[in-house]
């Protein structure tokens, strides 16, 4: 099918306001009479709470109330109902040790027993001004009885580690086995070669540029709560806030307009959102809370944090025979989401045809902030493991790394391809993407560039990685289409953009189907009084889920309108043709536009009141975006300073609805992955459990002067699983970036005896490795 609007680089409609400073972010909301909340947070990683003395704080100027966990208990506030276990049809299902039920533990808003990480909320102070609230929060005195703490993932799983939850003395809350142990053991026993690596993908955090914020406004007359708070999906937030407050769903309205970045961090509910609603009810005035950056570093749900041992069995010709993996994921102190462990578990074999595999997937509690899905949840970790392992196998067994990959790649003919742990890849041309990317990167010219760099005293390394990732996500989505007589069409949808341009790309799809200009479609998201159903935005689901249900709704609208148009035009339905947003009686000049029809329908009593449809869709089948990235890194051996000289990608996102937006997603994704490879780290003091990165002075965010411009191309292989052929474009940039960069550094530093480098690869680390190996 030849599309007119789908596939075009349409300028984004949301930019009209964002460019002028007229966006509506969470802290931009203010209501009359609002007060301000400050949060008292734990200064210990692990301690009993013996008492909280609020008397001095209560007498401070402007203080309206101070609330603790005891108050929350008296008011029967429920814990957050996180549902951390991935449960859709195709998710990798996780269980507790020995097949037991997974222990989740209550995520109470304000704990009364003990604190489990530095930064955990313990009490809230509400005052007339923010300064007064912060001043009073400073003098709330918490009496702690400190306990030994553990933050390190492997250490938390060791015998004798401090126990985070009494119910789980050894901290291991998940232990699940996947694949075929017997056949894997047999393949390893018969293998010519076995290569093994221990890999640590450390803790990072999402750092959306807009800190979290929430404004709670309880209406005494109606008994309704309005919570203005940006997130990854307001329908879920509404449901969970209502459950925490113990009220019916529609008693809560959540409003989420512009969201300043998410990357997974905002998908799950935070304690502060119900807290502002509760506090507003307690004092009878609106309550506003805005996180500062230090609080974000302490209390945002964080990402990654996987320890794994992987091994690969090969025959004497380099054919992969089997793989083993032992994955240990750090869920932090409270179990918010097991998505990273589950997502990664399904993709340990990566882009390669490995006949059998055996995997142990475990999760462990620790005295750290909870973890959650973070851009490409779980997939960068396992992509890192397999691509580092293949690279190492090639180096140690004397294979050309490209040839070794080609030999073992899943072929197009094998699609749909069931991998060894139970995922079925929908489609893709892995070999073609490799070829395209190597051409684009001028693979053959590398040796010349390397010599040239060496002539300047520089080292040049080249990194390569393939990837395949999975887009699953909440399977249900709903779209409403309302045609308005004034020449506009409202499209209501339950996803939540935070920069992905839904107002534009979704409008492109609807406009394509209805044959109207893109700018006549208004996409409505984020206000639960308007959006009743919706799965939010995560796991690359939005374009695929929304695109599919929009197409379905648009078809339904045309069908429904046709009947009405037949009545209005006094013609047989079979004589009507729909094109360019209007119905025409074939062979005549008699026609009526959707808008004119909406106007007629609105005033004629014999026809339905509105030209509207509501369509639901459930789509369980996952899709598997994939591709290939190549980088070149130039290193100054004297100082260890480096620069990324080239970075090239070919990504299969399925059909790209708006390539301008997809390019932006790819660029941003690369840098977000590279940030982790090169500098980002939630460093923690191993003894005290104190986070050492609490500001932008000590958490290295990627900056413009550290990156080159990238060469990115698409190899669009439409997915057979949905009508538009969409896969996903948001995570492909990030997924292989960690692996491709570290492969590049190892390539450059191999002459110095370097086999592996722990991320983040800082210039200092590079310098030390060069020094040690010289």
């Amino acid at each position: 099918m030849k599309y007119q609007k789908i596939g075009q680089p349409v300028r984004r409609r949301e930019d009209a306001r964002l460019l002028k400073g007229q966006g509506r972010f969470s802290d931009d909301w203010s209501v009359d009479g609002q007060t301000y909340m400050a949060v008292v947070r734990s200064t210990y990683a692990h301690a009993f709470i013996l008492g909280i003395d609020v008397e001095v704080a209560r007498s401070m100027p402007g203080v309206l109330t101070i609330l603790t966990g005891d108050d929350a208990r008296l008011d029967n506030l429920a814990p957050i109902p996180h549902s951390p276990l991935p449960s859709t049809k195709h998710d990798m299902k996780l269980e507790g040790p020995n097949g037991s039920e997974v222990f989740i533990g209550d995520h109470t808003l304000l704990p009364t027993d003990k604190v489990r990480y530095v930064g955990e909320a313990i009490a809230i102070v509400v005052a007339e001004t923010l300064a007064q609230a912060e001043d009073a929060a400073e003098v709330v005195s918490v009496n702690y009885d400190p306990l030994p703490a553990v933050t390190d993932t492997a250490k938390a799983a060791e015998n004798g580690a401090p126990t985070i939850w009494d119910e789980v003395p050894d901290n291991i809350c998940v232990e699940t086995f996947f694949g075929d142990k017997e056949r894997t053991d047999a393949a390893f026993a018969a293998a010519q070669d076995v290569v093994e690596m221990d890999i640590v993908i450390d803790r990072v955090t999402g750092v959306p540029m807009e800190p979290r914020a929430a404004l709670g406004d309880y209406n005494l007359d109606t008994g309704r709560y309005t919570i203005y708070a940006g997130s990854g999906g307001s329908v879920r937030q509404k449901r969970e806030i209502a459950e925490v407050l113990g009220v019916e769903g529609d008693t809560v309205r959540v409003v989420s307009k512009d969201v300043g970045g998410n990357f997974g961090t905002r998908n799950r509910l935070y304690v502060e959102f119900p807290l502002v609603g509760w506090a507003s009810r307690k004092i009878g005035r609106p309550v506003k809370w805005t996180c500062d950056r230090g609080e974000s570093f302490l209390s945002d749900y964080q990402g990654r944090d996987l320890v794994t041992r992987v091994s690969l069995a090969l025959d004497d010709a380099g054919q992969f025979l089997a793989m083993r993996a032992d994955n240990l994921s750090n869920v932090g102190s409270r179990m918010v989401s097991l998505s990273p462990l589950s997502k990664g578990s399904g993709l340990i074999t990566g882009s390669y045809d490995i006949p059998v595999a055996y995997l142990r997937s475990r999760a462990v509690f620790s005295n750290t902030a909870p973890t959650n899905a973070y851009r490409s949840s779980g997939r960068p970790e396992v992509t890192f493991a397999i691509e580092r392992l293949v690279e190492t196998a090639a180096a140690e067994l004397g294979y050309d790394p490209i040839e070794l990959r080609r030999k073992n790649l899943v072929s197009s003919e094998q699609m749909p391809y069931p991998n060894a742990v139970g995922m079925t890849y929908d489609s893709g041309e892995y070999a073609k993407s490799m070829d395209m990317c190597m051409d684009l990167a001028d693979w053959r010219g590398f040796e010349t560039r390397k010599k040239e760099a060496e002539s300047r005293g520089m080292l040049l390394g080249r990194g390569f990685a393939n990837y395949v990732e999975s887009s699953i996500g909440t399977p249900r989505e709903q779209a409403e289409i309302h045609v308005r007589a004034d020449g506009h069409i409202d499209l209501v949808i339950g996803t939540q953009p935070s920069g992905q341009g839904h107002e534009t790309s979704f409008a492109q799809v609807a406009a394509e189907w209805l044959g109207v200009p893109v700018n006549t479609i208004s996409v409505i998201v984020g206000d639960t009084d308007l959006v009743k159903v919706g799965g939010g935005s995560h796991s690359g689901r939005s374009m695929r889920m929304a695109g599919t249900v929009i197409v379905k709704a648009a078809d339904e609208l045309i069908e429904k309108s046709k009947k009405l148009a037949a009545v209005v035009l006094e013609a047989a339905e079979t004589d009507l043709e729909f094109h360019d947003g209007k119905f025409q009686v074939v062979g005549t000049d008699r026609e009526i536009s959707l808008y004119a029809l909406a106007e007629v329908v609105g005033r004629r009593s014999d026809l339905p009141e509105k030209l509207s449809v509501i369509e639901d869709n459930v789509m369980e089948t996952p899709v598997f975006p994939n591709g290939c990235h190549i980088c070149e890194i130039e290193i100054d051996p004297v100082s260890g300073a480096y620069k990324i000289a080239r970075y090239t990608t070919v990504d299969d996102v399925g059909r790209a609805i708006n390539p301008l937006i997809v390019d932006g997603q790819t660029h941003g994704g690369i840098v977000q992955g590279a940030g982790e490879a090169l500098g980002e780290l939630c460093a923690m003091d191993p003894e005290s459990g104190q986070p050492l990165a609490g500001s932008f002075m000590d958490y290295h965010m990627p900056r413009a002067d550290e990156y080159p411009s990238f060469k990115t191309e698409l190899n669009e292989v439409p997915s057979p699983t949905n009508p538009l052929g969409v896969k996903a474009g948001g995570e492909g940039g990030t997924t292989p970036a960690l692996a491709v960069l570290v492969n590049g550094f190892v390539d450059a530093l191999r002459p110095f005896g370097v086999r592996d480098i722990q991320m983040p690869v800082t210039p200092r680390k590079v310098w030390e490795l060069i020094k040690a190996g010289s």
Partner: protein
Amino acid sequence: MKEIEVTLTVNKRVHTVNVAPRMTLVDCLRDILRLTGTHVGCEHGVCGACSVMFDGEPVRSCLMFAVQAEGHEITTVEGLVGEDGEISDLQDSFWECHAMQCGYCTPGMLISSHALLMENPSPDDHDIREAISGNLCRCTGYQQIVEAVKMAAERRQEGL
């Protein structure tokens, strides 16, 4: 705390406000003058989301007190828009190149890019990356921002 009267010019309009001595300039712009286009990203002067023009120079409004703005002239992102409500050529280039995603850092990016083009009408990639290196963007990977600034510069050179 005793409030202090401050008179400052923001986007060519003179305002007289009463502020606590410890109130930052960005809080004054956002919470008192309700100019919420200028954003707060870190409050320690690293991220650049709060950048504004201060007497023609880009500054971080989270690192200044409102009282320090007495008698000074400030331009925020809202002030980059022409009096007729039309966006500037720089804003238009940002739009064309898809130089923003979530849009939170965008006001600061526009201010830093605006300041760069006043000083250097024909910057190369390196100059642009250098000039915006004090503005953190988590979404774009910076490339489309660099392209946008270059496009604006080229169009000015060509007199378009």
